[in-house]
């Protein structure tokens, strides 16, 4: 039932996005309803990964480690999608796929941070250490994600970023509704995928434990 609701929600979001008239300052609008919600959902996934990392450190329940891993993986995939769709968005609106826009650089930095997190997990043999290191780095990682997604362009002089400022707050009501409708849809979709991935991780851990008996 929940899967059907998510499917209908995301499809409706896409239709609404394509039905919207062009927004102020943007040459093409529909991709905004995919790219921006994906970037916001990515940040939510990384926050969830850090939260479940803290839960693992507090409770030592491997379920929380699996959830943290799953949310980070889904967030990482979302980060790649946000970056690629952002490049397409940049090409149509500003004439180049890559223009060292602070927001682009910030998302690339976030991608590198989580790639390092996966490298750290792969380079640690002891299971407990691996989960501890993961949780600690996930906490630091979300700081970089927040900085790259929002803070960095705020500290630069006005006009340094090509990204339109305050689109999320100053656009008309229909635009804001479409945007947040899609944010909610993608957040639900990514959460569902993360939950399935976490179940797989827990099953894999149990199988590994059984194989040693």
């Amino acid at each position, binding site marked *: 039932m929940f899967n059907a609701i998510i499917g209908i929600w995301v499809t409706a979001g896409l239709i609404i996005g394509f039905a919207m008239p062009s927004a102020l300052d943007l040459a093409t609008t529909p991709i905004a309803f995919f790219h921006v919600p994906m970037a916001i959902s990515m940040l939510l996934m990384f926050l969830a990964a850090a939260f479940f990392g803290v839960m693992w450190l507090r409770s030592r329940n491997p379920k929380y480690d699996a959830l943290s891993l799953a949310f980070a993986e889904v967030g990482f995939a979302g980060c790649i999608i946000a970056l690629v769709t952002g490049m397409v968005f940049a090409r149509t609106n500003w004439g180049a796929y890559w223009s060292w826009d602070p927001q682009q650089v910030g998302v690339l*930095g976030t991608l590198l941070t989580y790639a390092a997190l996966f490298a750290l997990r792969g*380079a640690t043999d002891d299971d407990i250490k691996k989960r*501890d290191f993961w949780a600690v*780095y996930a906490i630091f990682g979300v700081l*970089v994600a927040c*900085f790259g997604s929002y*803070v960095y362009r705020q*500290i630069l002089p006005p006009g340094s970023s090509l990204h339109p400022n305050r689109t999320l707050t100053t656009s008309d009501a229909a635009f804001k509704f479409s945007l947040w409708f899609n944010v909610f849809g993608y957040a639900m979709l990514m959460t569902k995928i993360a939950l399935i991935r976490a179940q797989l991780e827990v099953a894999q851990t149990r199988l590994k434990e059984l194989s040693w008996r």
Partner: protein
Amino acid sequence: MTIPSQNAASPSLSRAIWAVWEKDFRSEWRSRAALNAVVLFSVAAPVALGWALAKQKMPPEALGGLLWTTLFFAALLGLPRAFVKEEESGTAALLRLHFSSDAVLWGKVLGQLALLGVTQIAAVPLFVLLLGARVEAPFLLLLAVVLGDVGLAVSSSILGAMAAQARSKGALFSALAVPLMLPLLASLSVATGAAFGAKIDAAPALQVVAAFDLVLLAAAWMTFDFVWN
């Protein structure tokens, strides 16, 4: 050096931090491995930059970025040694036995700060001299260096402790540290560019560095025990 025996009463935190720092200082002073590598890189990098960019007038914003890129990569060379050498020489277990994780963390952070400070006393004036930077706001530059060093020292301590216990220690440290230190590098470049005369407001960048330092300090303090023990 005052390393208490197992039978002695636990030393106060400040004495334990001092003992960890002193042990690191003495061991580094014997070999000077990290110091030599970091100082030599910090000195060689501006020379190489000067050669590559000969006679080109660099804008202050770019000079700020180049200074921090040099200091940042110099730090990557020497900072992971603090924990890697403990694991390689088998002294990590002794440290765990004798001192609390807080003492180890803050002792190592002080050691990293000392290494960065000594390096920058040589590297920053040389950079300014060779690349023709005009320090128009010395206090701002000093503030940026101090705040930057705190962030680098804290993040390199906790990441160094993780990388030292994993496979491919040195390479992994760089992979972990580069993305995590990007916010520092970006903000410090903006603030240092302003110190070199760029017409930008340095306050927001310095506020970000200060906030990032505080969050790093708090997060490192709360999580180091999980990483170390």
